C-alpha cells in the first residue's frame, strides 16, 4: 500500500547562487552541475566547483533516474516518511525522500525516478519513486 498521507514539506529558500536549480524544478527538470575544470558532476549546487573552486561550471539536466544508496523510514513522526540518498545515473548521491510507494518494500539498490512534490510555499522539490 502506498502511503497516502503527505507530510508538509518545508520550503527551500533559493538564492542567487541556486535559483537556476529551483527554476528547473518548477519546470519539472532535475538539473545538476558539472565542473568544467575536471568534467565531473557534483552535488549539491554551488557557484564554484568543490573540486577546484573554479567558477567555470555548467548546469546540465540529469536523466532523473538512479538507485537508492541508503534510506530510513521514520516511525516516530506524525506522518511517517522515508529519507534516502539516491545515486543519480550521473554518479552523484543526493538526499531526498522516497514517495508514492509502500515504505516496507523499499530496498537499497532499488531503481527510482524523480517526481516533484510541492513544498509549503509551492516550490517543487525533487523526490523519488520506484520505477
Amino acid at each position, binding site marked *: 500500500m502506498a502511503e497516502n498521507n503527505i*507530510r508538509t*514539506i*518545508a*520550503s*527551500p*529558500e*533559493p*538564492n542567487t*547562487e*541556486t535559483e537556476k536549480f529551483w527554476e528547473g524544478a518548477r519546470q519539472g527538470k532535475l538539473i545538476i552541475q558539472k565542473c568544467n575544470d575536471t568534467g*565531473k*558532476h*557534483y*552535488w*549539491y*549546487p*554551488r557557484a564554484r566547483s*568543490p*573540486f577546484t573552486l573554479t567558477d567555470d561550471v555548467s548546469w546540465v539536466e540529469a536523466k532523473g533516474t538512479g538507485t537508492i*544508496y*541508503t*534510506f*530510513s*523510514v*521514520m*516511525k*516516530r*513522526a506524525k506522518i511517517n*516518511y522515508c*529519507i*534516502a*540518498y539516491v545515486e543519480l545515473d550521473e*554518479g*552523484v*548521491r*543526493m*538526499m*531526498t*525522500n522516497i514517495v508514492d510507494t509502500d515504505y516496507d518494500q523499499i530496498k*537499497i*539498490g532499488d531503481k527510482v525516478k524523480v517526481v516533484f512534490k510541492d*513544498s509549503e510555499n509551492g516550490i517543487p*522539490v525533487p*523526490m523519488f519513486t520506484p520505477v
Partner: protein
Amino acid sequence: MSINGKAYIAGAWEHPTRKAVDKSLAELHADVAKGALDDAGLSSDDVDGYFCAGDAPGLGPINMVDYLGLNPTFVDSTDTGGSSYVVHVEHAAQAIAEGRCRVALITLAARPAAEGMATGTAPRVYNQQQPDVQFEFPFAPVITNMYAMAAMRHMHEFGTTSEQLAWIRVAASTHAQYNEHAVRREVVTVEDVVNSPMITTPLHRLDCCVISDGGGALVVVHPDVAKELKRPLVKIKGVASAVKGQDAGQTDLTYTAAKFSGPRAFEEAGVKPADIKYASIYDSFTVTVLLQLEDLGFCEKGKGGRFVQDGNLISGQGKLPFNTDGGGLCNNHPANRGGMTKVIEAVRQLRGEAHEKVQVPNCDLALAHGTGGSIGTRHCSSTLIMERE
C-alpha cells in the same frame, strides 16, 4: 610541532545533575568550572586559557570569561558540535606548548532535558544561508534518521545485524548499573534492544542515547604545573581532528572522519590501537560506536559487528572495555554533545578512579574519541590519546 608530552590533564569533573530545572545555563558552566579546578587543586586565579563551544551562552568565549571572572591570555571557541571539547584539548595543548597559556579551562553545559527538547526526532531550525540546507531540509533530516541511514548501508554492505548493534547498548548498560548518576541504570539484553520501539529503521529506541542536562569541565596544564599538583599525571600523547562531508556528491556513509583523525593521533602518540587499554567512544547511537571502532583501527572495516558482539566491550569481560560510565547511551549526553564526558571517563580510568566494578586494571593508556555534527551528512571527529605516567 608535536604536542606529545607538552600538556597534561590535571582536572576533570562531570556535573552530577541530569535534569537541571533549578539551574541556569551560565550557572552550570560555573559549577563545572569550579568542580574541575577543585579536582586539579587549582583556583580560578590560576586560569589563563579558556575554551568553550556553542553551548556556552554569549558571543564566543567573551560572556563566559566575564561571568566566570577570568583573565585569560588565550581563548578559543571552536565549535565542532559534540567533538568540540576533544578539539579544545588539542588546541589547549598547542597553546600550552607554544607558551600562550599554562592552565586551560574547558567547559560544557546545557539543559536540553529541562527545556523539553525533542533532540532526536524534531527538525532543527536551520539557517538557510548554510549552503546545504535548501537541498536537505525539505526532506526532514533529523539526528536519528541520519545515523539510521549509515546503519542501513553498513548492514547492506557488510551484513551487520541489529543484534550486533544491540551488543553496544548491552555493554554500556552493564557499565551504567554501577554509576549512581546515570540516567538509565537498568541492564538490558540484546532482545530488549531489538524489541524496543522502532524509531527510524533500522534504529530502535535503545540504539539511541539519552537526553540529559548537566555538563563537565577539563583543566589542561603545562607539565611543570601538573608536577606540582597532587593528582595522578595524565599526559596528552597524541590528538588529531578531521572533518568529513559529502565529497561533492560521493557521499559514503560506511566510514567517519575518525578514519583520518585516528591514524594521525596514533602516529603522534607512537602507539597502536592494540596498545589501548580503555576507549571512550562517542555513542550518540550504537552505530556511531561501530563505525568509529572500525575507523580507529580496533578492527577491520566491516567487521565491527563481530567485534562488538558477545560482550567484547564490557569491562572485565571483553578485549576493549569502552564507556565504563555508561556513555551517552545510558549515563549522560549533556548538551547533546558527548565529547566532554568521553574525556572525563578516560581520565578517571587512567587515574584508577573509575567505579571499582568497571575499573580496567593497570590502565595506563586510554583513548577518547568525539564526533560532532552528523555522520549522515558532515561532521568532525577528534581523537585523543592519553597516558598515565
